[in-house]
């Protein structure tokens, strides 16, 4: 994981500075969500895709990121991420 984060720190260098302006809602697992999702894409993808996905919809998105996009999210982390997204950005 550390290795991946380091790789990202280098590879993501051209990311735009203003990305830091995005704020996610405060709730349990927010930091986990920010770290897991923010590895590959900016966090504005989350509010942009709200409010219309239900828990099943967010679960499908998280599963796609893990299974198709190769997100390094551990088995015990995925439900916490889904809980956060469904409760804070779900319908």
């Amino acid at each position, binding site marked *: 994981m550390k290795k*991946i984060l380091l*790789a*990202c720190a280098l*590879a*993501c260098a*051209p*990311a*735009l500075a*203003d*990305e830091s302006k*995005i704020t996610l809602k405060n709730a349990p697992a927010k930091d986990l969500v920010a770290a897991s999702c923010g*590895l*590959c*894409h*900016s966090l*504005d*993808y989350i*509010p*942009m*895709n*709200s*409010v*219309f*996905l239900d828990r099943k*919809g967010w679960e*499908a*998105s998280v599963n796609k990121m893990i299974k*198709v*996009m*190769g*997100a*390094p999210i551990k088995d015990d982390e995925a439900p916490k991420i889904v809980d956060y997204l469904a409760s804070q*950005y779900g319908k």
Partner: protein
Amino acid sequence: MYSRRQFLRTTTGSLVMVGGAAWAGSVAFGASPAVDLGPKGLPSGTLESALLEALPGKAPLIKRSYRPPNFETPFSYFDNVITPNDVFFVRYHVANIPQVSAQDWRLSIGGEAVDKPFQLTFDQLKRDFDPVEITAVNQCSGNRRGLSDPHVAGVQWGYGAMGNAKWKGVRVRDILNKAGVKKEALEIVVDGADSAVLPGTPDFVKSVPIWKALDENSLIAYEMNGAPLPHWNGFPARLVLPGWTGTYWMKHVVSLNVVSQPFAGFWMKSAYRVPKGKFPLVDRFLSQETDANTPITEMVVNSLITNLRDGQRFAAGRVVTVQGISWDGGYGIRTVDVSVDEGKSWRPSELGADFGRFSFRQWRHVFTPERKGRYVVMAKAINRLGATQTFEYIFNPAGYHHNVVHRVGIEVA
């Protein structure tokens, strides 16, 4: 530090009134072209997280996502037939986007279905092949996804994930013929210089049926509206496939591989697919079809009213000009019908200059409202095949092909 609202206020000025419209404008009273972060109907979180921001070398656009960058052209720019380079929309799938120099760039032509693989430098590309210029619409497959009912996950575009430009480049077929295309050629696999952050993420690679690649209008373009491609639009060269949606228009293109088997990458097999038989389209990508679905191909017939805003006020007894743009998958627009009574009656509009069948075609209609009150103006394009737009969205799981008739309500006082 600016709040979002302050930011909008301070950048509004640069957006209002872009260039000169092709026709003289109408008399409007109290029109306030508010900064448009997207139409009503976009998800609430989409509108809240959007703002106007300029990528390096671009004018302020509607930010949908920072990384990968997805930036939409504000609506007011579509009142012109050509979309300027600095406001042309930006769409990426993966976030590592290198600055490619023309000096170092190479285009590799290969694959098992060519006789002689070779590489081109940028100078050779420009020097060794005949240049061609085509005006063509580049529209993201998911343009207007944010208006899908129900909403579906993805980049929540409003109207502006599209643009119309003069693309100058060389024919893909001239390049491929130099390599010698074997008769078993089925598809060309096209890759760009961008790549994903993680090794496990599928790289953005597309394939195109060989017949489309060999079409005389398919280009490797190196100029856009008379200037080099902006970085964010694919510098130094990109694929241009007039008529087909933007997913195939690979930016920073670095390789063309001619293959004899269907390409099995994620962005072909799983993404950019529409249910079979749901849309009245002609072009089919048969080698990629399954029983259930098929790759998206050409654009559906579409139009927009570009000079009126909801709630805009006009004086009774004075002429109102309605104008807009229309486009389709490259068959050409036959007519654009306009209604000023919410669809009860329709009149053909006057079409503007013809920049070719792949371009936006402007249209306009004038009428004089005598009655005071609200008028719902609508526009509906019909192409030369007789295909037209829908009044209700044809739902599909990925939110493609939105061509619901555009309507704008104006007030006459």
